[in-house]
């Protein structure tokens, strides 16, 4: 199972016709101008473009709003998420604080929803961090070292890439009676790093051949110092965007896993809400308040993260900016 994602996350090849409209693309000619571009010549300049970029602002606002909601939501809920309250299939009402109504078996949908939101962010952060860390380690080493080490790491990456994660997860589920959200996050983290490693390896390759890496070597710098102090900072925008994609991807994978019943066994998440609602024929019973909120939430978070990423690409890459 691969992370559903947009085509190649970052601008390794800049499109010749930018997507933005305008009579004249804004690219500055080389006439007397620097070859390196203006990528990081001022945090201020970047912030200026960041604030002006609608995709970034809208995407970030949505995600941030959901984040705040996830933090304070559970304190607002009137009932624990798994408690059977007795009021079955209640449509949204202000009575008893069932703002999102109840499930077929009387559980508070709002409580489940905010709990699920919180879990979503945890999975995203944890799963995203783990896969980013492994991806960076493998990608940097393979790209910098090349040769035998590169071949070995490539093989490792390919093996993990083709592992049927469903099958593995099923086996794990059979052995472990209780699985928590941590388990799920770690599992996602350990299986979704290959594409990140690949992308980073390619980026590292292209940077390693630049003369400033040789300069650092001639200055007596050790390899790891060069990787983290020369190469990684050059890719900082790429790394940032990659993390965002891994974050969103983890949430999506978790929801998918939950939906088919392989989610954590001791709590309720957004994906699980959707699973239970489908199992209980909520669609046919017109219990829309049960599956619509979680579905919309997942869509909103992941979609906004991706849109944010596209906006970030425009901010970091001067060639894609509109006039």
């Amino acid at each position, binding site marked *: 199972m691969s992370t559903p994602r947009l085509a190649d996350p970052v601008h390794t090849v800049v499109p010749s016709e930018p997507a933005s409209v305008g009579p*004249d*693309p804004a690219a*500055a*000619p080389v*006439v*007397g101008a620097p070859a390196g571009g203006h990528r990081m010549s001022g945090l201020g300049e970047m912030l200026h473009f960041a604030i002006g970029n609608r995709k970034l602002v809208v995407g970030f606002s949505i995600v941030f709003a959901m984040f705040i909601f996830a933090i304070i939501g559970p304190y607002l809920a009137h009932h624990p998420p798994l408690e059977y309250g007795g009021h079955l299939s209640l449509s949204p009402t202000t009575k008893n604080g069932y703002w999102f109504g109840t499930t077929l078996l009387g559980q508070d949908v709002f409580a489940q929803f905010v709990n699920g939101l919180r879990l979503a962010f945890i999975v995203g952060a944890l799963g995203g961090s783990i896969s980013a860390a492994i991806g960076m380690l493998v990608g940097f080493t393979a790209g910098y070292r090349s040769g035998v080490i590169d071949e070995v790491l490539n093989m490792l990456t390919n093996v993990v890439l083709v592992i049927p994660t469903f099958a593995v997860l099923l086996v794990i589920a059979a052995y472990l009676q209780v699985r928590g959200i941590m388990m799920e996050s770690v599992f996602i983290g350990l299986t979704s790093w290959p594409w990140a490693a690949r992308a980073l390896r390619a980026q590292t390759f292209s940077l390693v051949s630049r003369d400033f890496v040789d300069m650092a070597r001639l200055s007596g710098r050790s390899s790891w110092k060069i990787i983290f102090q020369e190469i990684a900072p050059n890719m900082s925008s790429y790394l940032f965007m990659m993390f965002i994609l891994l974050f969103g991807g983890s949430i999506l994978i978790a929801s998918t896993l939950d939906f088919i019943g392989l989610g954590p066994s001791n709590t309720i998440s957004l994906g699980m809400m959707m699973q239970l609602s489908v199992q209980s024929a909520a669609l046919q019973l017109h219990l829309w308040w049960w599956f619509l909120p979680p579905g919309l939430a997942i869509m909103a978070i992941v979609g906004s993260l991706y849109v944010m990423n596209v906006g970030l690409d425009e901010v970091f890459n001067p060639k894609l900016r509109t006039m």
Partner: protein
Amino acid sequence: MTLRVDDLRVYYRTLAGDVKALDGVTFDLADGEIMGLAGESGCGKSTLGKSLIRLDGRMRYVGGSVTLDGTELPIWDNGQMDEYRFRHVSIVPQYAMSALNPTRKIGRMIDELLHSRGVDMDATLPELERRLELVGLSNDVLTMFPIELSGGMKQRVVMVISTLLDPSLLIADEITSALDVSTQKAVAQTLVQFRDRGFVKSMIVITHDISVLYQVADTILVMYAGKLAEKASAEDIVMAPRHPYTRMLVSSLPEVGVREADHRLSGIAGRPPSLLDPPQGCRFRDRCPLATAKCVEEPPFVEIADGHGAACWHIDQTVGRLDIPLEKIETA
């Protein structure tokens, strides 16, 4: 008269303002003439070459006219220029040899190109093969992929393709820069051959390497910071340049036979002005040893001898041996 360019202005629009890459250039190109366009990076020579065929979408035509064989070229309009491209005006762009589609055989690529221009490939094939042979390439080249050819071979293929329809004007943009010295000579001589055999009526050869121009060009036009500095026969530019910039440039070129221990050459201190906000008047005055207060007013490009023009107020002070550095003559 093949080409007449009159006060051509082409700018690039950027976030920071207009980059005045080409700011008023006027010259003529006679039938059968090979004109070299020389200058350093940022002088506008590539912009001039590309604007004659309107190749770059970022350029903004601001003013002036370009007349080819008596007809004015619509260089402000991309669609209208299409009729003239490849048939009457053709260009070998910079890095052309790296731009060949690596997944296409050369023959197939030419076929597609001709088809898109409405030219019958079968009818043109005999001529194509004849020309390939002329430049030393066998017909097998048509069945090869670009990766199988050397740099010199690719460059010659591109030159043959560009001149297939016998255009009046060929613009060759830095075609010898990325080549080794021996292939450079072969490619440069091929250019002259094309003119001699009538495949092309006139040529503009753009390069920063004046010594190559001396070998193949009839006249040389030297540009600086978007404007014309000097125009003269190749012989005069190299042996007796008059504009201070040309003089200092030519005398800074080392030649085989000149050794530092015997004779130390000197360059030109400083760098060209920013074209976003160019200085008023002569653009070379910040680096010119002859600059005076008068240079704040822009010197016109005037003819100082037959076929020899320059834009400088102090042109009378630049006669003399090249190895003697220029010095201001203090006026009382």
